């Protein structure tokens, strides 16, 4: 069964020649079978030498005893590993020149989507690193930055790439002075009043003049109703506690970003089931050991942890290395994989489509030439929505195609 490497390469080459014709016609129920690799599904224990069937951009079947249907295109990946497309839950990719609307400290109505640069070289770099889905949003220079967008890193049609045009609010606590928190509370009260006003207006069958529209408050209302998520850029433990208290008071859906000190109050966070997006770990930022070990503490306390790159703080392509670092500092391998796949998908509520290799989900797959978390391991292929988006063996050709 084993073929030599040249054979594989030749095969892939032929495949790619055929592919452009094959894919648009995926309506014809063309099936792609990835065979022989060790598959880390993120949802269940790893399957050695498994088969993944892909149809219409979705995963049709995954398992070790899956029969490959007749006529399926088979890619032999003997000796490789497959992981789900990685998800970066917080980054500024494609938007970091337009990150902060500093003049307007409270601007929940700003939308990252409106400033997104899809021609950025970084998208391709991210893809090469195995990142297929990102949440990219406004910066943390302001108290309320605005709304982020959840998007795939590759796709023929930019609009199709968007998973979620989120209305969630990004907020930042930089703890400059004590009036920070009261001003945020004030804003929430205003939003409640705003909501009340409109409800009364709606209830009175729209008699009289409608209340004045306010985009900022309108963006906050769904957050307070618990429909949208509030993402909080926060570093210090006391600020996190304050927001946990605010959550108790207002009952919104909260996620912490960065959360350097979350491990110090792990139990308090776990008690309230707040997911935590923790520090970028790749080797650029000299995060002290205590904090790195804190990830394990958080996980053990029962907090749902995701890792992020905060691109451009750490390059998005290094997300996999982040997971490797988490493993180095004590997180079990499977858990670490979840932290860059399923956990961010769940916390961003896109887990019905991405985050794991499961039947029915988008076929976002990363094929690697070795143990997935080792730094020396390279990404061989990346599939996004069942399409081969990157192949290392034909790197030049793919680069050309993008232009």
């Amino acid at each position, binding site marked *: 069964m084993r073929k030599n490497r040249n054979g594989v390469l030749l095969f892939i080459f032929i495949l790619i020649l055929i592919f452009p014709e094959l894919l648009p016609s995926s309506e014809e129920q063309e099936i792609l079978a990835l065979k022989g690799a060790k598959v880390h599904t993120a949802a269940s224990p790893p399957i050695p030498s498994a088969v993944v069937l892909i149809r219409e951009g979705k995963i049709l079947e995954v398992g070790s005893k899956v029969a490959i249907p007749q006529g399926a295109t088979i890619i032999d990946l003997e000796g490789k590993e497959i992981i789900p497309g990685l998800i970066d839950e917080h980054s500024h990719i494609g938007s970091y020149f337009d990150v902060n609307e500093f003049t307007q400290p409270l601007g929940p109505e700003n939308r990252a989507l409106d400033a997104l640069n899809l021609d950025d070289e970084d998208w391709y770099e991210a893809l090469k690193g195995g990142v297929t889905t990102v949440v990219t949003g406004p910066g943390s220079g302001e108290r309320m930055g605005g709304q982020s967008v959840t998007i795939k890193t590759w796709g023929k049609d930019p609009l199709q790439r968007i998973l979620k045009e989120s209305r969630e609010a990004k907020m930042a606590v930089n703890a400059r002075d004590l009036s920070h928190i009261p001003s945020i509370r004030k804003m929430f009260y205003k939003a409640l009043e705003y909501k009340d006003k409109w409800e009364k207006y709606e209830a009175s069958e729209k008699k009289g003049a409608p209340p004045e529209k306010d985009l900022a408050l309108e963006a906050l209302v769904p957050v307070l109703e618990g429909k949208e998520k509030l993402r909080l850029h926060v570093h210090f433990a006391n600020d996190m506690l304050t927001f946990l208290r605010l959550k108790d008071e207002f009952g919104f859906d909260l996620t912490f970003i960065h959360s350097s000190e979350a491990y110090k109050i792990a139990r308090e966070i776990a008690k309230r089931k707040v997911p935590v997006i923790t520090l970028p770990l790749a080797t*650029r*930022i000299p995060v002290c050991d205590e904090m790195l070990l804190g990830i394990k503490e958080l996980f053990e306390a029962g907090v749902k942890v995701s890792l992020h790159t905060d691109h451009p703080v*750490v390059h998005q392509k290094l997300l996999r290395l982040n997971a490797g670092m988490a*493993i*180095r500092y004590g997180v079990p391998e499977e858990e670490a994989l979840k932290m860059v796949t399923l956990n961010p998908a769940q916390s961003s509520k896109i887990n019905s489509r991405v985050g794991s290799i499961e039947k029915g989900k988008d076929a976002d797959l990363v094929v690697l030439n070795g143990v997935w978390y080792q*730094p020396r391991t390279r990404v061989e292929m990346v599939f996004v929505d069942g399409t081969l988006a990157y192949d290392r063996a034909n790197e030049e050709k793919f680069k050309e195609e993008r232009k």
Partner: protein
Amino acid sequence: MKNFRRTKLVFNSFLPLSLTLVFFIFCLGREGDRETQLLAIKGGTILTMAGERIEEGVVLIKGKKILAVGKEVEIPEEAAIFDAQGKHVLPGIIDSMTYYGIRPFDLNDMENPVTPENRIIFAYYPFGEFMRGKEGINRDREILSGGVTSVYIAPGDRQVIGGQGAVVKTWAESYDELILREPAALDMTIGDTAKYEMKREAKTPVTRMGISTLIRTNLLQAQEYLRKKKEAEEKEGEEKEKSPLFPRDPRMEALAALLNQEIPARIEADFADDIRTALRIADEFGFKLIIDSGLGAYKLKETLAEKGIPVVLGPPTHPFVQGGEVSMTRELYREMNEYNASELIKAGVLTSLASFGFGFGRFGYATQGRWLLIEAAYLAGFGVPDEEVLKMITINAAQILGVDDRVGSIEAGKDADLIILDGYPLDIKTWVDEVFIDGVNVYSRKGGRK
């Protein structure tokens, strides 16, 4: 029972520390014995970095130096034995460019673009945390936990001529022993960072032209200074008595050392164009050159190999040492080649890998050096053989820094700086178990993190 348990825990946690301490005090207390003390590290896989690897070999240490290394080394009876069965033994890692141990405000003189008289050694701070912290010189476990035993530190990553760098150890028994080489090089920058900062005050330089003009002007002045000094020294007798004193100028003396080839220049340059400028200036004034960062060095690999100019590369995960993680100058992407290191090595350029570590606010000190092995592993994915990758952070670095007579490999006669790892060095799950500097076990992971 509970009570007992706690004492035990406390005991456990302090045990390695107190052992190190006891050992330390023991060593200090018996200064005389220290020179003749024998220690044998036995049974490990020794990657000497100077030839073939030795399976189940022995490293015999006498005092501060390595006495012998090999498979069949006779262990004297009086020698203490350290069992390294199943472990890997490597020379201490050398970070050939970092800002470790320097507080950010000490790094640059923002008022002057050219300060060759500044010496980083004045700012090196190996005393534990400010005001608080540990006894004695350098007990920063964080950098030791990565197996880093020597570092090159330099001033002024944002100045044209920052000043004089130094090669120091990360631990020593006394302050003087800390210094391996000082000054080790004159640190300069050609590129955007050297001008960006200055731009705020609209001072020279605001262009690359301005940068090289500044370097050239100062070197010309130094030539003049050397000439005058020579004149003054040549005078004799009566004439010498009468003539005015020749005033010493530390600034010019630093540049003169460069011109006399006593120290090399280390020029940080990202673009191939900047490297070309550096080569041009070096040719004009005839000094020894080392290229730092060298993102585009692969384009000039033949020239570099021919002239024997070494390159200190930035970390492969974030090679833009002059900008952020993602360079704000888009052109850098065109320059970037993940196979840079591999191409340079194939062409025969002496290359080392450095962390260019910097402090990051309250998150931590500039201890990125502790992850150099991970960087090396990452590089191993891009066409550099494992052996070469390890050399880049040990012996190659030592050669470039000019301290290979003392550190960089496990050879008889060299300093006993070595590390013991619990697995293959290029695996992300491998940890440094022990660090020996000058034959002293200064770091032990035992009982630490798991």
